[in-house]
């Protein structure tokens, strides 16, 4: 009988028990004996030379133990925070990689750059003392946007980076693309801004550094999605601590969305300071600090053109994108607008020629890096907007134009002109499933009904594809990645048959403790209660790369399967010995090992006991114990894909857009826990809706001050801003190259949603002759667009 908590079951989450009763253990919940508190004094200027720092008054302030500046770290030989991906320019030269010190040394380069650190007996005392530090700044002009950075006369953010250009990169076949445009019957063009966002995980970042002089061991407890990555980067590159003397723990983490992948200066500061102070040092960001100093997302300006023949067949795509890196290169910043963006520009379409150019620039703003979707939402938004503009231009139904250009499922595996090989996907099926769900046939009548009430109704589509589980390591390495992209797992059976699983993957909301346990319960036919999933502590788990890019199940789950394969192989031998049968005669089903053609059988529990109490055991052939570890390096990305459809109604008098219906049909390959998968889709959709309608990170162009530095100014989607959703999925095109057939579901909602929403908004406004509106489509912006185009309508 199938395990009721096995693969495919909507198992209620096991981690919820502690979260619902206030027994979670997030970093700020943890207090160490004798701990001190750090406060980060941050630059109030976007760009200023640090002439001097006077800490005398702060040092004698009540409770203060130490005040550190960049000079103290320099004296100790603390290095720059490293960037994890080297991009090469068109001419083959490497990108510019200016240093990024945890505490700024001579110059502050964004509002929020750390200039001094106060360590005191209490948070309040540290904060009070920081007000007594006198920093003499010499202000420089701020470069607050991409456009400002690329203005030929702009101030330089880094003296040795001419023109503020980090890199100037390209992908695809320029000549073939130009040729496609030369023979095009129609060309659709778009200029768009992919608005800058603040990730806003609800748990602000926090870190606790500890040092034990008895054995020279450092411990960092931190809000991280990937503790081993932090250990490697901080230990090997920044602080010079050998890995066997550095433990990094990421306990319960309150959301990440990418922003907690990166190695941040504060982590190095508390780790380093703990040894200097001789006591644990704790730091917790206030939300205002999170806005200033968490890595932001998106922030592109693009121009794109789509060449088509007379029938609307796509011939070529040309894209020019400028991407903001912020003041310094965050850990994976450079890979986002390149290998996670331009490689996705084929979308679901058989466009034969694509050429993309990307210029990455430095500005006096917070670093920009991966945020949920990371490059793929930007690619999807650009393509799906452009396809809608093309349909409008050709007078075609947007679904018909998409269908005409879909890569057919028969063409899989399919090599795109931008270097990816899609393994599976049935794009027409997604659309076929979704259209009846939204009653597309009835849309015209609904639109007329809205119009009769003076409202503007629109419907928008996004047929997205994305790439998850970035891999394989050797190819990524050839493209500039400075880390591996595998995952690890250890399956440790205990003598009485319960199991501890150690994964290098990390859960910060995704529900690994449930989903991964389902895989083990399913495989070995044991109760899910007998399986625990352990993650987030480098002292416990094998070296792993953590969780980002929707990789946990596709990569970490595959490593777990490999480890279970090893367990089963050994168990098979033990079973053969116990039942005095040939190994080739052993059959395995739901954790029961039987001898073919007999009624003899043992369970995995019997085998575990025999392995740990090896009285009757093939000791000459096998080691005792039942504990196996595996690493899995994927052969390819996985390619989740789907069709998102949004229907909106706009009130032209107020400009308010109301989402009436949002429907998502997704192909995530095989689904292990549908309850969790649907939850991931819901959350992803709202982050996409947030970008499309509400969220916008704004720096003052003149001063580089962050204008949206709190929840009073940065509009987070709230419960009454969004509707309930209709989500569905199919499992007809499982991934062909990982053992579970899974693709990943963490980012899909965000990747598809923004394009679907804006396409719906533009569709609603189409009678005004509007072809595009930049995100977020706030009521003010929509109202202005309507009124700017009203005269044209009246004249008709």
């Amino acid at each position, binding site marked *: 009988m199938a395990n009721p908590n096995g693969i495919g079951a909507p198992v209620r989450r096991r981690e919820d028990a502690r979260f619902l009763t206030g*027994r979670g253990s997030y970093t700020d919940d943890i207090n160490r004996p004798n701990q001190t508190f750090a406060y980060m004094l941050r630059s109030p200027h976007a760009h200023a030379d640090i002439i001097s720092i006077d800490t005398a008054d702060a040092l004698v302030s009540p409770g203060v133990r130490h005040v550190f500046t960049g000079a103290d770290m320099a004296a100790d030989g603390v290095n720059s925070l490293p960037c994890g991906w080297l991009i090469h320019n068109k001419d083959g030269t490497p990108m510019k990689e200016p240093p990024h010190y945890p505490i700024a040394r001579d110059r502050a380069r964004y509002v929020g750059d750390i200039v001094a650190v106060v360590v005191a007996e209490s948070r309040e005392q540290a904060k009070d003392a920081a007000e007594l530090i006198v920093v003499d700044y010499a202000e420089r002009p701020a470069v607050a946007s991409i456009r400002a950075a690329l203005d030929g006369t702009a101030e330089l953010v880094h003296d040795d980076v001419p023109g503020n250009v980090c890199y100037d990169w390209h992908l695809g076949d320029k000549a073939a693309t130009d040729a496609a445009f030369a023979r095009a019957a129609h060309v659709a063009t778009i200029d768009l801004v992919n608005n800058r966002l603040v990730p806003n995980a609800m748990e602000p970042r926090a870190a606790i550094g500890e040092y034990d002089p008895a054995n020279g061991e450092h411990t960092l407890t931190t809000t991280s999605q990937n503790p081993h990555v932090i250990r490697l980067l901080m230990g090997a590159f920044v602080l010079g601590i050998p890995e066997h003397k550095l433990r990094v723990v990421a306990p319960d983490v309150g959301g990440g969305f990418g922003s907690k992948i990166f190695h941040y200066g504060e982590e190095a500061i508390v780790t380093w300071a703990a040894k200097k102070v001789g006591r644990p040092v704790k730091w917790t960001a206030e939300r205002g600090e999170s806005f200033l100093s968490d890595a932001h997302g998106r922030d592109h300006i693009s121009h794109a053109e789509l060449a088509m023949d007379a029938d609307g067949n796509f011939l070529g795509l040309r894209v020019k994108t400028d991407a903001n890196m912020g003041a310094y290169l965050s850990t994976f910043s450079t890979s986002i607008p390149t290998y996670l963006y331009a490689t996705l520009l084929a979308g679901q379409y058989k466009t034969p020629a694509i050429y993309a150019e990307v210029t990455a620039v430095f500005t006096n703003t917070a670093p920009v890096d991966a945020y949920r979707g990371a490059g793929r939402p930007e690619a999807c938004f650009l393509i799906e907007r452009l396809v809608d503009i093309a349909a409008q231009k050709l007078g075609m139904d947007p679904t018909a134009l998409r269908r005409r250009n879909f890569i057919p499922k028969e063409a899989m595996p399919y090599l795109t002109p931008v270097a990816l090989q899609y393994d599976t996907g049935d794009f027409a099926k997604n659309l076929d499933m979704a259209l009846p769900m939204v009653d597309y046939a009835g849309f015209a009548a609904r639109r007329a009904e809205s119009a009769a009430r003076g409202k503007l109704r629109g419907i928008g589509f996004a047929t997205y594809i994305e790439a998850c589980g970035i891999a394989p390591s050797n190819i990524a390495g050839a493209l500039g990645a400075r880390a591996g992209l595998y995952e690890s797992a250890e399956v440790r059976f205990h003598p009485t048959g319960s199991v501890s699983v150690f994964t290098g993957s990390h859960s910060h*909301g995704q529900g690994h403790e449930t989903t991964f346990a389902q895989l083990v319960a399913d495989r070995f036919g044991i109760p899910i209660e007998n399986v625990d999933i352990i993650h987030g502590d480098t002292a416990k788990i094998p070296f792993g790369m953590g969780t980002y890019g929707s990789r946990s199940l596709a990569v970490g789950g595959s490593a777990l399967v490999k480890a279970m394969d090893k367990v089963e192989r050994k168990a098979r031998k033990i079973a053969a010995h116990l039942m005095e049968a040939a190994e080739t005669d052993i059959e395995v089903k739901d954790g029961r090992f039987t001898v073919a053609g007999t009624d003899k059988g043992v369970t995995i529990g019997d085998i575990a006991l025999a392995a740990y109490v090896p009285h009757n055991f093939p000791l000459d052939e096998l080691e005792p114990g039942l504990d196996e570890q595996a690493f899995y390096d994927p052969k390819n990305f996985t390619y989740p894909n789907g069709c998102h459809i949004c229907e909106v109604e706009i009130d032209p008098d107020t400009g308010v857009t109301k989402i009436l219906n949002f429907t998502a049909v997704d192909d995530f390959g095989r689904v292990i826990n549908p309850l969790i998968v649907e939850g991931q889709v819901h959350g992803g959709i709202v982050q996409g809706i947030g970008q499309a309608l509400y969220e916008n990170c704004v720096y003052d162009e003149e001063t580089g001050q962050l204008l949206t530095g709190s929840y009073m100014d940065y509009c987070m989607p709230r419960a009454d801003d969004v509707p309930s*959703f209709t989500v569905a999925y199919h499992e007809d095109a499982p991934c062909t190259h990982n053992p579970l057939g899974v693709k990943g579901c963490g980012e899909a909602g965000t990747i598809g949603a923004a394009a679907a929403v804006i396409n719906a908004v533009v569709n609603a406004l189409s009678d005004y002759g509007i072809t595009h509106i930049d995100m977020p489509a706030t009521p003010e912006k929509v109202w202005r667009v309507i009124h700017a185009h009203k005269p044209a309508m009246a004249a008709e």
Partner: protein
Amino acid sequence: MASTVTLTVNGTTVTREVEERTLLVHFLRDILHLTGTHIGCDTSQCGACTVHVDGRSVKSCTMLAVQADGSTVTTIEGLAAPDGTLHPMQAAFREHHGLQCGFCTPGMVMSAVDLVRANPTPSETEIREGLEGNICRCTGYHNIVKAVMAGAEAMNGGTLKAAAE
């Protein structure tokens, strides 16, 4: 400056000396070590710190500990029955997958319980408007709304409706 406050927190009377600037949320977290109540912002927008003060939901970052002197406070740690049986709203959040990272969850549950106290049979719109002061970044609110619907029914004496399968 320090003051002495006496509160009943989760059924236990506590008397502590606090700095007058101490917020109720810091009193709960730092002095009583009730870390289930979270701090998600510094502008009283996110609602992660919501607790009940004399039975009504309050963002505990908007109240000084000295203002709560003499009050009865319930935090997420005090919501379940003494034997560990989850409050129907807690159970509904689990049943309907109304939480992911869990950080906003204590505040969300405390707000939801007070919402249903004030309006025992809320509509979806009323739930969405009622939870407008609690930000969740993970769930997209869809399952939170379902959970509050189910939780309300269960609080009214109904059985907890199962998540559709």
